[in-house]
């Protein structure tokens, strides 16, 4: 039977046709589509429900009682939430600013200086925090802070956030810089700009989308962080994620849904903007 198939003059084309059909069909295997669909449902239904129930007028986070913004009003007037939000904002703003400046400098050094020994290693070290498990970083940071006796209250959190924000700020800036033609800087210097002016008028404006994109990414990563913040924060430096966690343990109310939804919208907006600005020509 097999012999016959091989010997048949048309077997080759038939075989290759069926092979290619199989190849293209692999994505349409029965069950694949359904699995993917279930995956998306599983991922997004809880978030969807969370957002819906933030608009619940009743007291429950599980029983729909009609549309209302009363929980939003309540959440925005809650002193603890306000304090946590302000803490989160202060930490994120300062950490983002410092991290973005450092990331910009690092990317300039790595991309624009003459090749130096350890250039690749420097790059790897910079990206390291992305692969070190967060709990490890958290524990390490905590023990380091107590080892050197650092006790700056919210300052501790800011320092920790700055450190893990750097690689996130670094990635879009570096991508931007790599796509940039270095002859532009040479042209600027040829046209009588000194190094600072070449940076100020040529490199920096062209790098700006990357810097903004990196800063937004760093900001949202900082706003969102839980594990490291939990470890290093002291009384008085509670951030929004820590506050939510504390509340959840006492039972879920639509107020938590509100805070979570607001954070979700902010994340979506920031990440989309970061992507759009980073992509800009």
């Amino acid at each position, binding site marked *: 039977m097999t012999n016959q198939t091989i010997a048949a003059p048309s077997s080759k084309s038939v075989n290759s046709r069926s092979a290619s059909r199989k190849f293209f069909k692999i994505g349409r295997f029965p069950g694949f589509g359904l699995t993917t669909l279930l995956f998306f449902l599983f991922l997004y239904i809880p978030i969807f429900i969370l957002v819906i129930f933030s608009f619940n007028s009743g007291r429950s986070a599980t029983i729909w009682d009609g549309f209302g913004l009363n929980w939003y009003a309540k959440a925005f007037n809650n002193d603890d939430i306000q304090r946590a939000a302000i803490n989160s904002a202060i930490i994120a703003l300062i950490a983002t600013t410092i991290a973005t400046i450092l990331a910009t400098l690092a990317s300039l050094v790595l991309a624009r200086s003459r090749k130096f020994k350890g250039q690749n290693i420097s790059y790897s070290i910079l990206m390291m925090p992305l692969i070190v498990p967060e709990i490890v970083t958290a524990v390490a940071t905590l023990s380091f802070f107590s080892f050197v006796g650092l006790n700056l209250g919210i300052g501790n959190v800011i320092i920790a956030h700055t450190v893990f924000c750097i690689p996130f700020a670094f990635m879009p800036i570096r991508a931007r810089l790599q796509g940039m*033609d270095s*002859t*532009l800087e*040479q*042209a*600027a*210097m*040829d*046209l*009588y*700009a*000194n190094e600072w*002016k070449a940076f100020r*008028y*040529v490199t920096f*404006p*062209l790098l700006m989308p990357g810097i903004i994109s990196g800063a937004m990414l760093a900001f949202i990563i900082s706003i969102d962080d839980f594990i490291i913040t939990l470890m290093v924060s002291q009384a008085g430096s509670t951030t929004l994620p820590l506050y939510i966690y504390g509340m959840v343990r006492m039972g879920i109310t639509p107020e938590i849904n509100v805070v979570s939804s607001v954070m979700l919208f902010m994340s979506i907006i920031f990440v989309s903007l970061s992507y759009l600005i980073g992509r800009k*020509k």
Partner: protein
Amino acid sequence: MPETAIEVRNITKKFGVHTEHEVTALDDVSISIKDNEFFTLLGPSGCGKTTLLRLIAGFEYSTRGQILLYGENLIGLPPQKRPINTVFQHYALFPHMTVAENVAFPMKMLGKDDGETKKAVNEKLELVKMQDFANRKPGQLSGGQQQRIALARALAPHPKVLLLDEPLSALDLKLRQEMRTELKNLQRETGITFIFVTHDQVEALTMSDRIAVMSVGKIQQRGCPTEIYEKPNNRFVADFIGETNLLEATVSKVEGNDIFCKLSDNIILKGEGETGKNVGDPVTLAVRPEKIALSPISEQTEGSFTGKINNSIYLGTDTTYIISVNGKSELASVEQNSAVGKVRFKIGDEVCINVADNAIRILED
């Protein structure tokens, strides 16, 4: 006697010194470029043209040697301190600035006031016929238009020397031909010394006052276009520029500057060039195909010799004949097709070969 604008003295440039990838990009190069001259560096890819230009602009440091600008040593001066501007191969216009801002950039960096800057911008945009595009961004311009802006920008601060690194190579053929004349006119109008880099011999021959032919980091020959074309010194120059016949011969008699070379028993050719040859030395002769005239065998004249047409190639404006001489050497001869519908010789015809006076060069080894 015109002043010397740029003097390159014994410049050697090595890359990757002390590594296994050491490259000598320039090897003891000396050139002197006169004030108000259109000077061209011509050579194949990788011969070190860009490196030399970057050294003059200040982007690289030489391993050895000096570069002088009107007698003043440039070594150690960064690019922004040299009154020399560059037109980059891919123009390097600042994409976030308008055309006018691009042209104004060097003026601002030099600390010129707004009035002077504005005047220079208008003047230079007019010079390159781009005044209507002042408010566009470079991304909204065609390649040829970007080229003009790059020129305007480099000329705005009125540099002493303008460096151009293959500025026409990114343009299509038609535009390239137009820009050749325009560049040449621009150089005459502004009176600025141009140093132009190209690997295109036609570009070099049509635009330059003088040419330096380079190969593997060395200057092979310097001279005006006719010298370079008609009196090549060596095999590289003869071969790189235009078409040429290279013939192996032996010196049979030396009379002052005239050297008589024996191509075969009955053919003796008078050549000039490389002196210091003695009777019996082997030499290479170069003759341009258009310097070889053919006539029917019946019209044999004094000093001519005979050959047989091996091949004829019709090229529209002219015809190239490949002729074998004594069954040994092959010669190409180009003849203009001035008469309509007539090809003078067919394959296999015996012809009489006349080489123009002083057309035979004896090449250095």
